[in-house]
């Protein structure tokens, strides 16, 4: 069990470093074991350093930087242990246009292997989807579905 945990940890860490650098166009990120000798009890710290900035605790990161760092961690897990589908509800609320674009590109490539369903208000994210569902309340309090577009 210990060995399997440690091997998975190493794989997730390697994926996290790569995906963070991809989403941030550079910079370094890493997962660190708080107690490496106690593999059964240790915790995991997240270290993130956007390009050119000084290494500081993740609590000092901005709202958008935190969201992108959390997304990089999530995608690293999906990379190591793929799941047939994943559903994200407005994960880009704190992102500026450049980061929404980068996230959209990553989701587009992820959706080649994993079915991706996103709930969103951002146009850039909608444009990347093949199927678009609109939810409205024509009658107050009653949700109704409208299928919007199917690209080829």
């Amino acid at each position, binding site marked *: 069990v210990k060995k399997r945990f440690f091997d*998975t940890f190493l794989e997730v860490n390697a994926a996290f470093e790569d995906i963070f650098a991809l989403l941030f166009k550079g910079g370094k990120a890493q997962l660190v074991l708080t107690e490496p000798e106690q593999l059964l009890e240790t915790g995991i710290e997240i270290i993130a350093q956007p390009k050119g900035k000084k290494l500081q605790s993740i609590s000092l990161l901005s709202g958008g930087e935190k969201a992108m760092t959390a997304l990089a961690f999530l995608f690293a897990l999906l990379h190591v242990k793929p799941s*047939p589908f994943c559903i994200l509800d407005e994960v880009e609320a704190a992102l500026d246009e450049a980061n929404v674009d980068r996230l959209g590109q990553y989701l587009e490539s992820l959706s080649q292997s994993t079915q991706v369903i996103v*709930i969103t208000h951002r146009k850039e994210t909608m444009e990347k*989807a093949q199927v678009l*569902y609109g939810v409205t309340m024509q009658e107050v309090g009653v949700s109704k579905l409208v299928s919007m577009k199917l690209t080829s």
Partner: protein
Amino acid sequence: MYLKKLEINGFKSFAHKTELYFKPGMTAIVGPNGSGKSNILDAIYWVLGEQSAKMLRGSSMQDVIFAGNSKRKGSGRAEVSLILDNTDGYFPLDFSEVKLTRRVLRSGESEYFMNKTPCRLKDIHEILADKGIGKEAYTLIGQGKIEEVLNAKPEIRRKIIEEAA
């Protein structure tokens, strides 16, 4: 394996039977504030066996049943079905499709079905367990929850990696 279809009836703001067909690739769900988008994800959490009313933003499990509006009475029951494609034999079952159903009446307990046959919650957990699908996993991210992994205690993050192992 992929999500093929979701049928919602009487669950939260979905008073009428509503069907969403999904394809592999990327699907976006859009709409105004309060129109029912997050309720769709709640329906998926629920059919996969979610037991906590708080996770579904309610105070009791009856809160998932359509409560009515100014003109219409509430529903007597809520029912959600999730149809998963199994042509690739992802689940060790003899079916090309796996249909998970959960139903609850105002009066009581939830009932679970697998391909229309009554089953227990335990059975659903068993087929989903080692596949990384379902509510503990990192594959369903609710609204405002993305930063939880950064704010979580280091031991919780370890549990997430253990799960993936």
